[in-house]
């Protein structure tokens, strides 16, 4: 009974940086066999991104690449060259999924587009991830994360609250850590599984078109819905009522005592139960009206305590509160420890490091053991000779010709 959800599924990844590779990682971490096809030479740009151990650049040890590359094998292959294309077709013929991120229209001249590959393998799920989708007036625009994040509606409204009141003349910001790239990878992974499910029913593959803009817009559905539904147009000056971000002894915390019972819990923990009885703080409406005073009361209390003290005292009494956790806080979190969120992965060059694993736990299948991110072209021989049955001489020839 213990088979991983995607065991027996082969995913070819011809994509770089975050979105495409994250899509394939999500499938690979749940048992898919992922073959990453990298450009000969430099490989995936994520290999050059870092962070690097001791800040020494090494394309096999980029932290971003190590994270996104788990459970993948790497071959170097240039499918735009005839010899490379033939090998690529042979890989496609037995694959279930191809994840690719080429600019719309650029795959066709090389015979790497969906209509061509469908001839090679009618069951193929061909997943395209691009900044603006396969068609439309913006489909050819060049974009990086900052660009696609800001065409999705949320960037324009950030930062709200304190950041805006401190610096009202500054520009809107971008969410940290390339969030929009992950939005696109996650959306593409869902669409891929849907297409695999459909193949079980209908027997054919298809072309999945994911736009990064639309993937991040999808998570702004509430904000966009409020505009269409009631004309609410958010910008950075949006009013945040009372509650929110407060400085404390060792950083920042969230405290959100919206409901009456939460406010009562807060002031009791503070040792000032009388604040629940005062007219200015009686109901949520009263507290909003006296928002500055409510904030002042909370701010004075948080200033003398640590993130953890505030978090546990309030949250264990049902008052919503949380620390603004740094990476260090996450690694030291007893909750994440109890859940086994971090997992040790041993890599031939980077050694054993603790990696974030998965946010979901499936009762039907324990998490498979992790294979570390591949070195560049690490599996050329294993896949090209072992699986496509090339001779060692042919491999050498391809290497010399710059095809692999």
């Amino acid at each position: 009974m213990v088979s991983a959800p995607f065991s027996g599924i082969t995913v070819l990844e011809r994509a770089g940086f975050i979105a495409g590779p994250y899509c394939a990682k999500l499938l690979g971490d749940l048992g898919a066999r992922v073959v990453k096809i990298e450009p000969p030479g430099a490989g995936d740009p994520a290999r050059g991104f870092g962070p690097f151990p001791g800040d020494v650049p090494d394309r096999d040890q980029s932290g971003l690449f190590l994270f996104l590359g788990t459970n993948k094998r790497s071959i170097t292959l240039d499918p735009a060259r005839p010899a490379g294309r033939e090998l690529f077709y042979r890989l496609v013929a037995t694959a279930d999924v191809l994840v690719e991120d080429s600019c719309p229209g650029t795959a066709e001249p090389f015979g790497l587009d969906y209509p061509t590959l469908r001839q090679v393998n009618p069951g193929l799920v061909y997943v395209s991830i691009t900044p603006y989708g396969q068609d439309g007036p913006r489909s050819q625009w060049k974009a990086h994360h900052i660009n696609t994040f800001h065409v999705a509606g949320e960037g324009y409204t950030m930062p709200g609250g304190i950041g805006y009141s401190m610096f009202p003349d500054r520009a809107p910001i971008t969410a940290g850590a390339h969030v929009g790239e992950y939005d696109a990878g996650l959306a593409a992974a869902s669409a891929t599984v849907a297409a695999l499910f459909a193949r079980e029913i209908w027997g054919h593959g298809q072309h999945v078109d994911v736009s990064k803009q639309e993937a991040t817009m999808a998570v702004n559905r509430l904000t966009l819905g409020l505009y269409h539904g009631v004309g609410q147009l958010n910008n950075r000056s949006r009013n945040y009522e009372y509650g929110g971000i407060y400085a404390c002894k060792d950083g920042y915390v969230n405290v959100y005592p919206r409901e009456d019972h939460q406010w009562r819990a807060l002031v009791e923990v503070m040792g000032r139960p009388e604040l629940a009885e005062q007219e200015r703080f009686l109901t949520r409406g009263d507290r909003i009206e006296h928002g500055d005073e409510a904030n002042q009361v909370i701010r004075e209390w948080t200033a003398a305590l640590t993130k953890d003290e505030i978090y546990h005292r309030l949250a264990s009494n049902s008052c919503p509160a949380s620390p603004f956790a740094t990476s260090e806080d996450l690694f030291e979190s007893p909750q994440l420890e109890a859940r086994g969120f971090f997992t040790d992965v041993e890599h031939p060059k980077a050694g054993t490091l603790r990696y974030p694993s998965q946010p979901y736990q499936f009762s039907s299948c324990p998490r498979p053991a992790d294979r570390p991110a591949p070195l560049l072209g690490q599996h050329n021989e294993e896949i090209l000779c072992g699986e496509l049955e090339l001779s060692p001489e042919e491999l050498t020839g391809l290497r010399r010709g710059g095809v692999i």
Partner: protein
Amino acid sequence: MGDGVNGARPALAGVRILDFSSLLAGPISPLFLGMLGAEVIKVESRVRLEGMRRPPYAYDDPEQSPVYNSLNLNKLCVQLNLKEPAALELALRLVSVSDAVVENMRPGVMDRMGLGYDRLRQANPTIVMISGSSAGRHGPESSYPGYANVFNSLSGLGHLTGYPDAPPSELRDSIDARVGATSAFAVLTGLFHRRRTGEGGFIDLSASEALAMFGGEALMEYAMNGRVQHRRGNREPGMAPHGCYRCQGDDTWVTIAVENDTEWRALCRAVGREDWASDPRFADRLLRCRNQDALDEFLEGWTAKHTPEEAVRILQDAGVAAAPSMSSQDLAEDPHLRYRGVWQEIEHPVLGAQTVQAAPWKLSETPPTIRSAGPLIGQHNHHVFVELLGAPPEDVARWQEAGVIN
């Protein structure tokens, strides 16, 4: 294009989802599955209204919530007051004819109501159940209350977002929806596994972990170098210029990202300032990053004289990545999104014609569809209880009187 035409071949043909979730993080997952063709039955009650049917999201009455509509398109709705034993019985009968169950109550609440996974599995041994919660079902903090801002900060994303010299910033409702998007992937995975093996199972989803995944590179930095990454506004290591710049007009902005020297020189030519290209402060990537404040000031001097549209056109023509920072209104009026079929019209029985957002992906052979508006409360009581479960109409009437269906 995803033009709302009824796909003859839905991806999730024959799949039925039972939806006990509310607000945003929960319902968006079955919403996505419904767009893929699954039949979604949402269980609600007037005893405790779904959060999106209450103010500030609903005005006047629970049927007048545009965002409830947007988050519950294609769904059927039945009423069940789950505190009533007969309602619980009906819920379990629905489980027995469903493929998956989605819920996002606090850990333990479904168990106490008699709808925990063990009970559901008795009703349907192959059911896939997902429980989404703030920190997961187990662990010392599993009972703590959670909202979007809590997941945002616990996940580390909050700390990484904002001006470097200001407190962390909040991502708001997108945070909940990212949890929902993760849930959709997990349920699809569970359904695919079930389709191939006949096995159901329980999925325990932690909202803060779902978001922590988005910060993987910062976690790796700590794992390898013991170093905590800090928020950096609009900047990106190794790229300059890289920012959001003021344009001509009221609160209008353009984002620009330059990756290499070729693009930098193209930018200088395009804005008519080839002298920047020969300025020794900006000679290469490293120097541009080091002198980014001066660089940004120069560039903003140019962008401020142009509308975002003009600036973007000039830069894109030169091969430089640029885009406007778009508000909700900009997106509503955007020709590209119109071409892509992102905005669709659906008639709601109370609200009238509503503009709603299409699915975030296009599938060429099994196009996602928006087939019906968000349901009225109990709109499908008869359809589901009588036609699907085969209950006699008299029983349904009696249950309604007794407050079981309420």
